[in-house]
Every structure is written in structure tokens, then in C-alpha cells.
């Protein structure tokens, strides 16, 4: 079996353009973004699109897990309608993006003729959400190709979310969510500490820290550099939460040399050059619509 990198080499020999390696921000925009943003991304990112397991994990953590939580939350009798469960979740989730996601699911249902505010439609809406969860998960694993590099050996995706018969679906989702959220087991199986200790990337890490902490860098980059410095100083204390703060660095490490990182995240303008990776930062929806 050919490794993805070998295949990539074959392809680079045929085409001069580097292959596209997508960051989580691009993945989210391609799935849930504004139509203009989607159009612009599709036009400017050459297919096929590659991702790493870490990127898939970030997408699941930021989208699918919240949908699973909403699915089970909406079963509670204290929420008379599906819309009530969404309102409750919107008030509980602090993340702005998640609020957008919940808004999207409501508008998707309304667009398709369902009324999430009607208590009589609650079960239909829940079933619709369940179908949506499986569709998004399936799409994620089939639409993008995996680069096959996972230096940190993230173990959160050791269980796949696959379509099942109705009676098995709830248990399957719970099992998937439980395996994903079990940080202790996940951390015991991954090797992020070894990656942080690796001599191979020592200079690159230092470069990110120096550039990120330098005056004039953006607050996001500063935050990333500070988190990376902390991790380098005590790699053995790395937890899944702490690892999530240096996600951009791990994404850059997993990008093969003949690939170009496509992102909407400006911190990559600092991270990618430190790891000698090519990067293309795409404009945000706001910037795009102003053009």
C-alpha cells in the first residue's frame, strides 16, 4: 500500500501546484459558511482536499459533539419544544460559533418546513438532528483525504461515528461521545508529550514563541506562543485541554512539506514559516463581503 506522502509525491511531479491541506477553520466554513465564502474557498483551494486526523478531531469537538449534546438535551421533558432546547443550549454554551451552529440547525429545519417551536414536532426535529449528525460525520470521513500524518498520535477518534439501525443509534452516539470525552484515556494513548520534546522541532517551537511573544503580534498569536512556551517547559503535564490551545502548531507539524496550508486563521502567518510550510490565509466572511 502506498503511503499518502508517496502518492502526494507522484502527484506533485505531475502538477506544479502544492496540494491543499485544510485547517479546521476552512473545514467549518466549507460546511457551515456563508454561500459567498464557500464559493470563494472552493474557487481558490485546488482539490483534492487533504486534512489530518487532528483537524478532523477539532471539527468533531467543535461541531458534532455539541450536536450530540443538544440531541440528548432536547429529550428532556423540561424543554417542551425543540426550539426551547436550542434556546437553553445557546444560553449554556459560551462559544459564539456554537451559537451560530444552533442557529443554523434551527434555520435548516425551518427551511425544510419543520416547526421547531411546536411541541408536537419535537420528536421529528430530534430525529432530523440525529440524521444530520450522522450525515455530517459521514461527510467528514468521505469528503476529505487524510494525509496520514499524526505526529501527536491523537487517540480521540479511535471510534467512528457510523450509521446504525434506529435502536442502536442513541447508544452508538453516547459511546462515541464518551470515548471522545474521556481525556484521561485519550491522553494515556497519545504521544503529544514526545512531540513537544522532539529535537527535530525544537527550533521551530522556539521560533513560534519568539515571534508570537514579540511586540506587534496579534493577541491570538501571543496566546498561542504563551501556551506553547508553557507546554515546552512542562510537556509531561499536557492534557487534552492544554493541547487544544496549541492546536495550530500541531496542525502545522502534521502538514507534509509538499502541501500548502489553507486557513482563515491569521496565527498561521507566524506558525507556518517557523515550520517551513507554505500557507494561504483566506479572507474572513466579513472581509470577503466588504470587497
Amino acid at each position: 500500500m502506498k503511503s499518502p506522502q508517496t502518492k502526494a509525491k507522484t502527484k506533485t511531479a505531475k502538477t506544479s501546484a502544492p496540494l491543499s491541506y485544510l485547517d479546521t477553520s476552512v473545514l467549518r466554513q466549507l460546511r457551515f459558511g456563508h454561500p459567498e465564502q464557500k464559493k470563494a474557498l472552493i474557487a481558490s483551494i485546488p482539490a483534492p482536499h487533504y486534512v489530518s486526523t487532528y483537524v478532523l478531531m477539532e471539527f468533531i469537538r467543535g461541531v458534532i459533539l455539541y450536536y450530540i449534546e443538544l440531541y440528548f438535551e432536547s429529550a428532556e421533558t423540561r424543554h417542551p419544544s425543540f426550539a426551547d432546547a436550542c434556546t437553553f443550549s445557546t444560553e449554556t454554551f459560551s462559544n459564539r460559533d456554537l451559537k451560530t451552529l444552533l442557529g443554523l440547525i434551527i434555520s435548516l429545519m425551518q427551511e425544510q418546513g419543520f416547526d421547531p417551536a411546536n411541541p408536537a414536532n419535537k420528536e421529528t426535529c430530534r430525529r432530523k438532528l440525529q440524521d444530520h449528525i450522522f450525515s455530517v460525520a459521514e461527510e467528514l470521513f468521505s469528503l476529505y483525504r487524510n494525509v496520514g500524518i499524526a505526529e501527536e498520535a491523537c487517540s480521540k477518534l479511535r471510534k467512528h461515528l457510523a450509521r446504525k439501525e434506529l435502536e442502536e443509534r442513541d447508544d452508538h452516539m453516547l459511546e462515541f461521545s464518551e470515548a471522545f470525552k474521556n481525556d484521561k484515556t485519550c491522553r494515556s494513548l497519545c504521544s503529544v508529550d514526545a512531540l513537544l520534546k522532539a529535537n527535530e522541532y525544537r527550533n521551530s517551537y522556539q521560533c513560534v514563541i519568539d515571534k508570537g511573544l514579540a511586540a506587534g503580534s496579534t493577541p491570538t498569536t501571543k496566546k498561542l506562543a504563551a501556551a506553547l512556551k508553557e507546554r515546552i517547559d512542562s510537556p509531561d503535564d499536557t492534557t487534552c485541554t492544554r493541547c487544544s490551545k496549541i492546536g495550530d502548531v500541531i496542525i502545522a507539524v502534521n502538514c507534509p512539506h509538499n502541501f500548502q496550508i489553507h486557513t482563515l486563521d491569521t496565527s498561521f502567518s507566524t506558525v507556518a514559516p517557523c515550520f517551513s510550510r507554505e500557507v494561504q490565509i483566506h479572507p474572513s466572511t466579513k472581509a470577503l463581503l466588504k470587497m
Partner: protein
Amino acid sequence: MATPAAFERQTKVVPYVLQKSQTVDNVLPPQRRWHAVEIFQTVIVQEEKPETLSDFFDFHPVVSPTIVPAKLKKIPRPSLIARSFEPHARKEILELLAARISEVRQTLGQPGVATAVARLRADLKKGYEVASLRDDMANFASAISLLQDYCYMHWSKMSADQLTRLENTLILMRKKSEVSPKDITRIAAVLREQGRSLDYPSTVQLYLDDEESSDEGKDKDGED
């Protein structure tokens, strides 16, 4: 004379629902009336245990059996076997959806297209509601959900050719004796591929080398 503690131990609260034309006076014997408390139509009877009665016996006041007035319930209407048998119900929905898709295809570029699309959308919704409420049609409901999502994202871009292909995916489901999760995955892949070809200007851009990409697909499956 019983002490208050003994009285508490020896009494039992039994709810008694008075029937029509019954009152505390004509139901309870005079020696028990002083214990009876009427709350709406419920009478709580507190009866003192006779000293002659052994502790081993259960202690109940004498109550007349509750008479529930007979009420005629609506007899369910006979349903057609075509609607209750899953393959028939599925076929019926699929035929309706195929007719709607065909209607959209025929009206493309004409003033009636919006009405045809609205009808298709309404029937997809109705079909999903019917299928999702039945456990044996859950997989079929997932298939309708995929169609809904596909139409939601792409319907404005769909050509007559695309609509024909969509109709063909419905035929696949009509022929099956039962729809399994694997069938849904297959339909999802077909729709995704169609959606991708609508999003991307050319499918050549997706696969740099056809032979290689098919090998890769196998490799990926192997890895999974």
C-alpha cells in the same frame, strides 16, 4: 379509650370516591361519619380498629365498589395495508417524490417552477414526518433527510440532468426489500458526489489521476 398514639397506629386513611347521588350521610354508617372529611368528591375515612380484631388482619373500611360509567371509544378506522406494510408505504412515498421531482424537471425555466419546488419541499417534509414516526421506516426517513439536505443546498443549481439522477437514486430504494444503514451510506455518497460536481466547476479538479484516486479509495477502505 385509645390514646392519641394508639389511635394513629390503629387508623388507616382510605380514599373513597363518592358516586353520583351519594353523600357522606347515605354511604357511611353513622359511627364513622365523624371521621369523614370531604375534599371535593374524595372522602377520607379514618376508622378505628376494633379491639376484637387481630393485628394480623388487614384493616379496611367497608366501601362500595367504584362504578365507572361505560364510555364508547372511537373505533379506529381501518387502515390500508399499503400504508402499514413498510415496503408498500415506502413505495407510495417514493412514487410521490419521483412525481414531484419530475414535475420540477418539466417546469425548469418556466413560471411554475417555484410552485413545483414548494410542492416537492412540502412532500419531502410530509414523507419525513410519516417515516420518522415509524421505527421500521427509520432508515428510509434518513434517506429522505439526505434528499431534503441535498435539495436545500443545491436545488437552485440543479439542472434537468441532475434531477433525473436524483430520481434514479429513488428507484434504488424502491427496489429494495428493506433499507439498511449501508444503503443510506451509499445514497449519501451518490448525493455527495452529485453535490460536489455542482460545487466544483469540473470533476477533473477533484481527482488528479483517475486510476490513482481509485487505488487510494481502496487503500483508505483498507486502513479503516
